[in-house]
């Protein structure tokens, strides 16, 4: 027991340090996504490379290969990786902008749905055509590869859109809204596939698939609907305790509870975590909960990627190397076609369609979560797990420059009404004499909203962008140099204006008093310079 825990601690130390250093190296030096670095960190210290070397004093290698199960990691370490994936998906659910998803479901729905359907069919089809032993779409291997091909991770896309100042372009809005739909469908798909893989072999009948799919979908939709109804009531109750730590802790506890329930229902744990996040995403404490859990996320999530990295077995990838590359290329092509064609039907030109397709290319954590679940359940082997990692690698390297280059040039929209996406929103802009003055006023505005019972959270660590929320009211504040812009739904414009008027009145009063006091204080300070 003590020995096992000692080994676990040493493993965690090696993984955490390797993942964080490699992550930084990839991001800062190689300009590649940090997740690839974290994955590589795990791969290097894992049982297939350095981890196999016996350590003196420990009387065994740090990562012994034979763990008595299907995975090359211990149950304890895998448990910690699962905990990390629960946090990851819980936070992904919390970040889901459900109103945007609902508002744009018509426009971006076609794009998201097209991408998911085409890439699933192509992914699963590739397994049927190229993998020996896979007899049809109902085969767990085909289902897992299909699901792997659907997952989009728009974190990288969002960063590029932001750098190129295209975040609020029709393409940007469409990509971000479609990605939400993509996530939601991807999670439902994962729920169905996991449920299927656990009970079937390749000779499955479609009626049974239908029943299982229906049960998984019913659990997902049912628990999401109940969650959304119960969450505001629950949060109101928790708020009485006046401790955001308790609210965040209980929320995470609920995510773990639902993860367990989802597992008991024959679905993946991450589904329960995502549903809990989704249910809480519409409450005004969502951003605060996210902020509270950020520390936990920052430590555990690199560990998750490192554990996924250490499960990569090079010797198993060799025979499927060609298939892996083909799968990665087909996956990208199917995303571009699947998302691009509906985009063209929705008013974008070819350039716009390509931008949207390229924006939906990057893959990330969900790909690995799907692959990890597939591997641990025995539905896929180390070879296909390697294929998943290759897909992630190829798309992460190819997608960013492709998207970045495609964003240059004129508009990708055919129609004139480009402002349609921003209808119903008003902007209130304040120009201050200097960035320092704007920063000072920004702090006061945030404090004023908090004084009104709002929750204000900085959403970007680099740029001063804030989300200010209270129940259904959702306001954003952006400081750009000496100007402050508040975007608000038209029905809350009066509130924003009143808050700003009050703060400017206070500021003027403060400045008036400060000018006199500063003059006197400055005189006294100068006098003091020459006093003996």
């Amino acid at each position: 027991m003590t020995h096992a825990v000692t080994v676990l601690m040493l493993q965690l130390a090696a993984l955490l340090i390797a993942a964080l250093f490699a992550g930084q190296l990839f991001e800062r030096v190689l300009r590649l996504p940090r997740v690839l670095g974290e994955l590589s960190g795990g791969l290097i210290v894992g049982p297939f490379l350095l981890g196999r070397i016996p350590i003196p004093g420990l009387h065994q290698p740090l990562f012994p290969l034979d763990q008595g199960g299907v995975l090359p990691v211990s149950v304890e370490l895998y448990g910690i990786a699962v905990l990390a994936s629960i946090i990851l998906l819980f936070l992904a659910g919390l970040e889901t902008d459900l109103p945007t998803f609902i508002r744009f479901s018509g426009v971006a729905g076609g794009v998201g749905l097209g991408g998911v359907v085409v890439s699933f069919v192509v992914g699963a089809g590739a397994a049927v055509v190229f993998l020996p032993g896979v007899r049809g779409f109902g085969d767990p291997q085909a289902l897992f590869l299909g699901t792997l091909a659907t997952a989009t991770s728009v974190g990288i896309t969002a960063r590029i859109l932001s750098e190129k100042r295209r975040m609020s372009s029709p393409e940007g809005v469409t990509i971000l809204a479609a990605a939400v739909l993509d996530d939601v469908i991807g999670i439902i798909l994962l729920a169905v596939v996991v449920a299927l893989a656990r009970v079937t072999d390749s000779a499955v009948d479609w009626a049974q698939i239908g029943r299982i799919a229906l049960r998984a979908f019913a659990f997902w939709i049912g628990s999401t609907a109940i969650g959304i109804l119960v969450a505001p009531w629950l949060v109101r109750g928790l708020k009485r305790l006046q401790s955001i730590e308790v609210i965040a802790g209980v929320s995470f506890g609920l995510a773990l509870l639902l993860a367990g329930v989802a597992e008991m229902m024959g679905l993946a744990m991450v589904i329960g975590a995502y549903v809990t996040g989704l249910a809480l995403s519409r409450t005004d404490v969502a951003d605060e909960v996210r902020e509270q859990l950020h520390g936990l996320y920052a430590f555990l999530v690199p560990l998750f990627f490192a554990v996924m990295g250490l499960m990569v077995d090079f010797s198993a990838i060799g025979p499927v190397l060609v298939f892996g590359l083909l799968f990665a290329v087909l996956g990208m092509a199917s995303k571009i076609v699947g998302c691009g064609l509906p985009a063209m039907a929705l008013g974008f030109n070819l350039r716009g369609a390509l931008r949207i397709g390229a924006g939906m290319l990057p893959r990330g954590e969900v790909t690995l979560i799907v692959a990890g679940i597939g591997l641990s359940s025995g539905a896929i082997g180390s070879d296909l797990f390697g294929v998943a990692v290759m897909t992630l690698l190829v798309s992460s390297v190819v997608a960013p420059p492709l998207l970045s280059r495609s964003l240059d040039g004129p508009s990708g929209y055919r129609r004139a009404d480009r402002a349609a996406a921003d209808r119903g929103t008003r902007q209130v802009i304040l120009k201050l004499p200097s960035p320092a003055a704007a920063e000072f006023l920004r702090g006061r505005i945030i404090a004023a909203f908090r004084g009104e019972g709002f929750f204000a959270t900085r959403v970007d660590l680099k740029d001063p962008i804030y989300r200010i929320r209270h129940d259904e009211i959702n306001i954003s504040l952006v400081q750009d140099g000496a100007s402050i812009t508040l975007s608000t739904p038209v029905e809350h414009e009066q509130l924003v204006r009143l808050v700003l008027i009050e703060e400017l009145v206070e500021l003027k009063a403060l400045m008036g008093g400060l000018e006199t006091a500063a003059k006197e204080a400055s005189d006294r300070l100068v006098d003091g310079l020459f006093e003996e």
Partner: protein
Amino acid sequence: MNLRKVLTVSRIFPWIEASDKDAAIREMVRLLAASRGVTEIGPLLAAVLAREAKESTALEHGIAVPHGKTDAVDDLFAGIGRVPEGVDFGARDGEPARILVMTISPLARTGPHLQFLAEVMRLLRDPVRRQGILDAPDAATILRLVVA
């Protein structure tokens, strides 16, 4: 926000008589305090006048929003007053204030002080509703126009 939770007919004062801004504020504070069973109006009045001294709370179209924060109250005091003759609040459009929307809220506690004002302002953007308030025969009609 739900105005019904804050406003009742006893917090609508349709017949305020005042010769100037200070007198109008004093009368409105007195009526609002009385509607909540508070007789000691000194700190409440001081808070509203202190805010007014920084800058006039007059908006446009005959509306003013005198307000203040003080720990002499333990929750939001809010009411609507009508000054039929109008009183000069120093508005930019020069119109005398006829509709006064007042809030007095606790200093330290967070609360929907500006949200109340914003919600009423949103309703008073409508000129028909503003005129309706000015023409209303009693407090109940004004309340109906505001919370309807």
